[in-house]
């Protein structure tokens, strides 16, 4: 019998449930990375208004607006798939898990296009006003 480990990444079965689980992990790890930076950035509130506004000016640059479109994807995906997990674990949605996934993803796509579109709009507006893409 071949060892599971040697079969590596191809061992994953790319069906709805497995793909949903894998994306939940990846977006979760991305969110852990983000919350670390977020707590650090917001802690500049302790250093007074000038320092905080200066920090906010850096993280409001077009570069970060575009990165935040990716962040929004992670937040929306992780939250909606998390609701699906709770529906499966506590409300007997196991047999309907796949249609539930696609339904929630449709809602998520609308939210992402709406929010992400607003963010890209902000970034383009800033670039048009002559603000540099990179804040440093």
């Amino acid at each position: 019998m071949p060892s599971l480990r040697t079969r590596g990444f191809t061992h994953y079965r790319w069906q709805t449930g497995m793909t949903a689980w894998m994306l939940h992990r990846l977006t979760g790890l991305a969110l852990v990375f983000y919350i670390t930076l977020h707590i650090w950035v917001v802690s500049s509130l302790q250093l007074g208004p000038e320092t905080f506004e200066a920090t906010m000016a850096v993280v409001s640059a077009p570069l970060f607006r575009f990165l935040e479109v990716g962040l929004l994807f992670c937040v929306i995906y992780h939250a909606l798939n998390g609701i699906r997990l709770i529906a499966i674990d506590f409300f007997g949605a196991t047999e309907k898990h796949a249609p539930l996934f696609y339904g929630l993803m449709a809602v998520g796509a609308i939210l992402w296009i709406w929010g992400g579109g607003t963010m890209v709009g902000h970034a383009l507006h800033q670039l048009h006003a002559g603000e540099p893409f990179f804040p440093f």
Partner: protein
Amino acid sequence: MNQLLKQFGTQSGGSTAWIWQRITGLVLVIALFLHYLFLHFLNGGNVTYGEVSGRLAMPLWKTIDITFLTAALYHSVQGVIMNIHDYVHRAMLRVTLVSITWVVGLILWITGIATVIAIKSL
């Protein structure tokens, strides 16, 4: 010793972590909705010191934010530990990584709490 390390952190079978991951997850969905509504929607996307400190002067908002912070960090720490348990099979390394995760989470929690409590309104 090695047997002790192998069983480290497995006494509860993970059921406590499992149920709390769901409870904090639900708290986070609600808190994130409020977060986006108040910080990115109702104020037109402008986060200023005056606005943040004005909100955090209210005990209700301090309570909401500390709950949000605590739920988010518990959920994050537990999520990272789940990944460690799934992919790190060497006992000593696993214990070390789980411990580092808790310590980093605790440092972030103290940083966040200090920010929420210490902020002075203009």
